[in-house]
């Protein structure tokens, strides 16, 4: 199975030949835009102010079946391609970075299940994500490891067909609202730190004891608290593929594609405010181009670069998934790493440019041009998987990379 084939239906069949008078189904992008404008956007200020979980956004996405967007239709999902999901993430990010991030992080876990969850129990879990709208979270970092997600200190304990896991997770975004947490751990107590597996820890066997809070500069609605995770369950919930393969083939590229699409949505939202600000000024003095229109032209150039970067990366991933050997190549890893660094830097650049254009109206809270929340959120992009770590990985890979 892969996450490329887009099974989105565009029309409705009428078996008896009668005229279907129902309104046509919305396209995935239009559906995301509608939920964004009607539900996600109106709650965004409150989500940010109170650093609270975007309940209404997640409920609306669940209602629309979008929590199962990446799951093939044969398994009860919407069968959207990663490209389509990425478009939806961009739309949501226009309205609320946090809600879009929760949606994106959930989809990353879904992609891991769809591509690597080959056991009977995991197939069942995937189908339940589609039918019941279960929400999936992730616990890849660990206290004492220093942010290197490719090493674990905790280990899966096996007792016949049962597993048990205890993990000190410095961050599990929206963990307390998730129906299952996918956690990395050493394969067994005897395994080396890099010999990892990914385990789906279901709510009924899961205890999360809060160890740190979440009062951050941005992405406040992701509720990225720290937890002591204690989980037990059926060993069939351990993904059969080594985590090293899940990471390089799915988790890392899907994360970087969805995150960059999200950051592009934030940049677009800031650009929209700047454009509106300049156009309002222009209407007051037709015939005279407002001075900050030049700044808007510059901003638009950067936004176009950003757009093209994101679109090309999505195409590259779609092509690579058809030829799995590509996803294992060093060139692909370097490209996906570069995407994350570029996009996370560009989002700050665009939001800052928008702030210069909107001036005090952008700097002040409570105006239609306020950019405070977007600016705070945008700085998070470089930190979630620190760009220095990604640069260091690419520096190492480039020592043996051949084709430019």
């Amino acid at each position, binding site marked *: 199975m892969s996450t490329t084939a887009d099974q989105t239906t565009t029309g409705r069949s009428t078996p008896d030949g009668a005229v279907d008078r129902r309104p046509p189904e919305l396209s995935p992008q239009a559906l995301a835009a509608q939920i964004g404008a009607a539900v996600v956007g109106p709650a965004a200020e409150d989500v940010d102010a109170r650093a609270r979980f975007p309940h209404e956004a997640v409920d609306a996405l669940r209602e629309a079946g979008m929590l199962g967007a990446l799951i093939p239709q044969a398994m009860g999902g919407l069968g959207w391609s990663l490209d389509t999901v990425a478009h939806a993430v961009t739309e949501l990010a226009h309205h609320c970075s946090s809600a879009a991030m929760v949606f994106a992080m959930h989809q990353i876990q879904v992609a891991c299940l769809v591509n690597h969850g080959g056991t009977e129990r995991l197939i069942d879990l995937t189908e339940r994500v589609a039918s019941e709208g279960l929400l999936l979270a992730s616990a890849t970092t660990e206290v004492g490891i220093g942010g290197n997600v*490719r090493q674990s200190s905790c280990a899966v304990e096996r007792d016949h067909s049962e597993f048990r896991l205890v993990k000190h997770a410095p961050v599990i975004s929206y963990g307390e609202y998730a129906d299952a947490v996918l956690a990395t751990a050493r394969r067994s107590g005897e395994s080396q730190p*890099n010999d990892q597996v990914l385990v789906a820890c279901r709510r009924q066997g899961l205890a999360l004891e809060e160890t740190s809070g979440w009062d951050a500069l941005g992405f406040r609605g992701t509720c990225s608290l720290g937890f002591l995770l204690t989980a037990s369950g059926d060993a069939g919930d351990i993904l059969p593929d080594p985590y090293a*393969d899940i990471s390089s083939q799915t988790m890392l590229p899907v994360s970087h594609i969805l995150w960059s699409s999200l950051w592009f949505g934030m940049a677009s939202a800031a650009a929209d405010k700047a454009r509106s600000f300049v156009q309002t000024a222009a209407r007051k003095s037709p015939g005279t181009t407002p001075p900050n229109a030049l700044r808007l032209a510059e901003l638009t150039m950067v936004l176009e670069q950003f757009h093209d970067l994101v679109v090309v990366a999505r195409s590259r991933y779609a092509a690579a998934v058809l030829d799995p050997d590509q996803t294992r190549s060093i060139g692909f890893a370097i490209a996906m790493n570069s995407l994350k660094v570029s996009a996370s830097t560009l989002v700050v650049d665009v939001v800052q440019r928008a702030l210069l254009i909107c001036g005090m109206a952008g700097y002040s809270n409570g105006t239609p041009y306020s950019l405070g929340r977007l600016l705070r959120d945008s700085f998070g992009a470089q930190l979630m998987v620190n760009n220095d770590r990604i640069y260091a990985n690419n520096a190492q890979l480039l020592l*043996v990379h051949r084709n430019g």
Partner: protein
Amino acid sequence: MNEQMEDQIRQVVAAYGRLPVDISTVRRTDDLYRAGLTSHASVNVMLGLEDAFDVELPDELLRKSTFQTVAAIEVALRSLVENEQARN
């Protein structure tokens, strides 16, 4: 020749693979990643092999599977060394 090449591979893996176990306890077909070879260290092993055997590993061999076992490394290197000899 076979043993000589394997010995040389083992020396490179021992020097640059940062394995937490003694290389002599790793069998030809044991999984090096399970033995503790990280992706970061595997790049250093690649560089060490290229230097020791005076070859350049082409892009299609720069895969996790090429460095999975001592035996797999030997197959990859042998294909390169033989190509080189055929050309000369």
